[in-house]
């Protein structure tokens, strides 16, 4: 099996899964669909591994392969091939995506087992994985955009999976529209680049970029900025992030897969993929870095005050992706991608654990209601803690190494990058704080009634299923993890998935340990980024400093959290009171939603209403239609009024006409 065959098969498996599940939806049960879906993704992972090995077999300078199945659209100087581009970066992404996806599929087979839409769910989920793989393996801008949009569509379908929830459909459309905005950015960016390169093919673009573009050439910078818009929208960076918290309306595995581990990191991938361009358009790259920093801080602060368990994790995701964006924009590619990988593991894990908790709470998501679940669900607790430690970058968990590597590389750039470096550490503190706030509030303290019930061996069932977002009574016709919902403690499949991820979250750091103890990852990715003008080296002092600082900050964060939420439980309330303004600001998520509503949504809606109610009536129907008919009618009645039946008037008009005509001729002579 050649490299390209394997690569195409990576794409083919989830697509086949999607098609089979959706075409047979009437025949197969949800369970079968889950198995088919999981196997399909698993197969994709296997092929990814094969491709990985095939790639490694090749000489280092031949590790970028393009392959095309058919000509997709070729005319007028634009050549779009149905082609993929295989290099270490895409294989790396394919591995992460298919790997994590397999686990989440596995988890879902149990988590969604009692849902009436399980078949549909797996069809969507497989479609998502296909799209994501298409995104990472696309061989040209066009297919990249296709994958980009497909993941958006899959995300939309899964967010509004429980489509009778109005909150879910609203969140879905919001996510979709912002993603389309990202698509547009991507397309425009492509245009700006295409204007000079005259090719959409990645290989050709990258090969010729440095020849065609001078550093910071305007068009390239604009193009890259537009690309960044795409990246920001997909990766929920400020100010295009507002969809991500709302996207938590989807089933928890979806949040885990799409809105934590894979799709939202596409922006990171994009910047990494486009690094030959960004390194010429450094201004654009700097903008990306700054936005990454801003996002990681803003999201971190909001994460501190959120009370919905999934939203806290969602903000954390935003924040972590902020790190990655910041990193890849600062040319710290390996660090960024390393963090991408570890983040995929631990964030997926956290969401899975959160799903388990939500299951235990009977669908309740507010941490205000949760307390003392530690004893009731020890496995979940354990995995949650592992995930939390990894997230707050505690040694020796994977997050520690990846975040450290990331910040270290940024720090090496020097200059104003120190600001980013410093900001990263501030963010690290916030991360530890909100992560452990969550853990302490959920698992510590006196058990809440649900926990007690669970300890008694019985799963809590709410009397009526309500929408956690607005308290509306659910329309359970279409499913939800209903009365038979499953928590991690009870399902082997979930335990396997979570356990695997917990292990990975713990040990994944080994691929790239500090001081080049291991450098598997950077070695593997090196062919991709070898031509990068930014090269890192040495500076072991800085590395040491970072490792220690990181540890200190993580510890400080955890301890602070412990103090506030465990040792002195009233502290939080007191702080809220004292900084009520700030708290309000944060609870309202920095008023981003309101600003967008005010600046964009309302004007458009107003325009639409104005169009419909006023313009349409007055101009389109009034002036154009009504005006024309009015003039015609008026002249008609005038003419008919003149036709009054009086013979003598007729004669008069006739003679009047004659006199006028004579008059005209007299003037002529």
């Amino acid at each position, binding site marked *: 099996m050649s490299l390209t065959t394997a690569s195409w098969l990576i794409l083919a498996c989830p697509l086949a899964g999607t098609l089979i599940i959706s075409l047979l939806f009437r025949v197969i049960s949800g369970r079968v669909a889950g198995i088919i879906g999981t196997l399909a993704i698993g197969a994709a992972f296997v092929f990814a591994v094969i491709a990985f090995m095939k790639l490694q077999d090749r000489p280092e300078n031949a590790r970028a392969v393009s392959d095309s199945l058919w000509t997709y659209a070729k005319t007028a100087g634009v050549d779009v091939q149905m082609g993929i581009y295989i290099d270490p970066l895409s294989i790396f992404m394919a591995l992460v995506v298919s790997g994590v996806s397999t686990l989440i599929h596995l988890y879902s087979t149990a988590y969604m087992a009692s849902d009436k839409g399980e078949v549909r769910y797996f069809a969507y989920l497989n479609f998502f994985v296909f799209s994501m793989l298409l995104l990472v393996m696309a061989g040209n801008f066009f297919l990249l955009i296709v994958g980009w949009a497909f993941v958006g569509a899959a995300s939309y379908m899964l967010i509004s999976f429980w489509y009778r929830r109005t909150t879910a459909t609203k969140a879905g459309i919001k996510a979709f529209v912002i993603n389309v905005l990202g698509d547009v950015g991507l397309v425009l960016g492509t245009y700006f680049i295409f204007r000079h390169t005259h090719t959409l093919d990645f290989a050709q673009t990258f090969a010729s970029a440095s020849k065609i573009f001078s550093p910071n050439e305007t068009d390239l910078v604009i193009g890259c900025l537009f690309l960044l818009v795409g990246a920001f929208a997909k990766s929920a960076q400020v100010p295009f992030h507002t969809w991500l918290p709302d996207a938590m309306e989807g089933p928890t595995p979806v949040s885990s897969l799409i809105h934590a581990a894979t799709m939202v990191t596409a922006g990171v991938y994009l910047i990494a993929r486009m690094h030959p361009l960004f390194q010429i358009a450094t201004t654009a790259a700097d903008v990306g870095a700054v936005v990454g920093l801003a996002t990681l801080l803003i999201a971190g602060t909001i994460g501190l005050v959120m009370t919905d368990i999934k939203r806290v994790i969602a903000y954390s995701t935003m924040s972590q992706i902020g790190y990655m964006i910041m990193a890849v924009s600062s040319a710290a590619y390996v660090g960024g991608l390393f963090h991408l990988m570890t983040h995929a593991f631990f964030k997926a894990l956290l969401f899975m654990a959160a799903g388990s908790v939500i299951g235990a709470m009977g669908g309740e998501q507010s941490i205000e209601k949760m307390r003392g679940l530690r004893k009731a669900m020890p496995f979940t607790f354990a995995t949650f803690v592992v995930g939390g430690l990894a997230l707050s970058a505690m040694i020796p968990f994977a997050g520690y190494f990846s975040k450290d590597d990331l910040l270290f590389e940024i720090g090496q750039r020097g200059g104003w990058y120190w600001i980013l470096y410093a900001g990263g550490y501030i963010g690290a503190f916030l991360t530890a704080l909100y992560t452990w706030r969550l853990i302490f509030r959920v698992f510590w303290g006196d058990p809440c009634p649900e926990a007690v019930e669970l300890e008694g061996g019985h799963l809590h069932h709410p009397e009526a299923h309500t929408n956690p977002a607005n308290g509306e009574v659910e329309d359970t016709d279409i499913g939800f993890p209903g009365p038979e919902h499953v928590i991690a403690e009870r399902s082997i499949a979930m335990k396997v998935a979570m356990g695997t991820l917990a292990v990975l979250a713990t040990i994944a750091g080994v691929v790239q340990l500090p001081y080049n103890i291991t450098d598997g990852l950077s070695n593997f990715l090196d062919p991709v980024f070898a031509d990068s003008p930014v090269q890192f080296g040495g500076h072991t002092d800085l590395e040491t400093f970072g490792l220690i600082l990181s540890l200190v900050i993580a510890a400080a964060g955890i301890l602070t959290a412990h103090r506030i939420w465990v040792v002195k439980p009233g502290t939080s309330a007191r702080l809220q009171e004292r900084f009520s303004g700030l708290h309000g600001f944060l609870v309202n998520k920095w008023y981003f939603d309101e600003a967008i509503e005010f600046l964009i949504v309302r004007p458009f809606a107003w325009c639409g209403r104005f169009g419909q109610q006023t313009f349409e009536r007055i101009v389109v129907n009034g002036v154009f239609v009504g005006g024309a008919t009015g003039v015609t009618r008026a002249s008609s009645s005038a003419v008919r009024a003149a036709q009054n039946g009086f013979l003598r008037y007729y004669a008069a008009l006739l003679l009047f006409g*004659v006199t006028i*005509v004579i008059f005209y001729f007299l003037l002529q*002579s």
Partner: protein
Amino acid sequence: MIAAVARLHGPHIDWAGISPLVALLGAATIVLILGLFRGRFVRETLIPLLAIAGFGTAIGLGAWRWHHPAVLVSNAMTIDAFSIAISGICAAAGVIGVLLAWRSLAAREAGQGEFYALLLTSVAGMVVLVSAINMVTLFIGLELLSIPLYVLCATEMGREKSLESGLKYLIIGSVGSATLLYGLALLYGATGSTDYAGIARGLGAKGLASDVMALTGIALVVGGLGFKASIAPFQQWTPDVYEGAPTPVTAFMAVATKAAAFGVLLRFFDVALIDAQQNWGPLLAVLAAITIVVGNVGAIGQSSLKRMLAWSSVAQAGYLLVGVVVSTRAGVSAIVFYLCAYLVMNMAAFAVIVARERKSGRGDDISSIEGIGASDPLLAWPLTVAMLSLSGIPMTVGFIGKINLISASVNGDYTWLGIMIVVGSLISLAYYLRVVAAVWMRPSPEGGMPALGHGEDVVPPGLPVLAGGDPSADPRPAGWEVTAVAVVCGVATIFFGIVPGPLYDIAQAAGRSFVGLF
């Protein structure tokens, strides 16, 4: 003195050339005489057949003389393709008029012999009018055309409107004639000749084309002939007369008078007055534009179909006038073509109106045709086709006709008139479509079929008095011949819309008759 008289020789008379006219007048005479017989067969079958035969003979003789243009009776008339074409249209309108009138009240009231004799004479007048190349002949032709029509309009004497229309037509018509006459007098005064050729020579002489007397004469001629052609602002008689006249007469008048009026307009302006073209061209252009607008807006919202068609005929006059304005051969052929088109499409419409008028008891009100799409497709289709053709929808002869006119207008540097034509067509949709909508999209009015054949009791109580819903309207249902006219004209409308070649041959030959034009 006797010797002097003896020296006098009658002019050479080209009997072959004048034969169509003789046929018409002869037929008129025969029909008139036969009208004295009281036999039902003679009155109701033979006379109409003879009238048709008269028209047919005239057409046939015209066709026979098609390739033999000649000047007749010492410069009084000319027979050429143009005059034959227009005369043919008039005669064809006459045939249709006879068919529509065959069993109508008007013919019975007037007396069959008289009625058809008047019709024949009127057509003879038209033939004279369009063949005239001398203002004396012109004037006599005009009157020979008009006076029978005045009478014909008034023939449904039981109906007040008929008389009213007759008198209105007569008085306004006479005013028009007088105006024309005075104009002719001035032209005669300016040029010293009554021949078109003489007038043209006179105007061609230095400076005379812009002499006030000549120009005033032209102005008065514009008024007088414009009146006959229903050109705004001389159009006001048209709706009233069309509505009031018996429908078969209206049908005849609408087509034949128009054809004759444009025949004479073309001949007089493009032959006699051609040297003053730059003077009257712009004026006629403005009048054409006004006519198009006035005719079309006037037709909007009319509930009487005849009245609507009358206004529409005003609008058509506007379109046709464009062909006069440009004074090119293309313009002449466009007019001839359009008149042919106008013949078939208008006659299809009128035939349907006649049929429905006699059947529905609602006169020519638009409600009389409501729902006939379902009940009477043989009438509905021709009417629909006629309306679409009048509004210039493709695959109908009206479309080709409009193209010709527009093409002529562009060719003659009057592109804006071409635009006016389409603007007019656009407005016209508003009323043509109303008819189509009534035919297809309305149910037949309830109880809309009053008992037939009861004379005065035709209109059932409770039926609103509608336009034309006259209690003394013709009570007898139309015979097959009316439907046949409708169908034949409808088919011809489509046929010539797809195969316009034959009409073109006629129109272009007619255009070539004008040797002075390009």
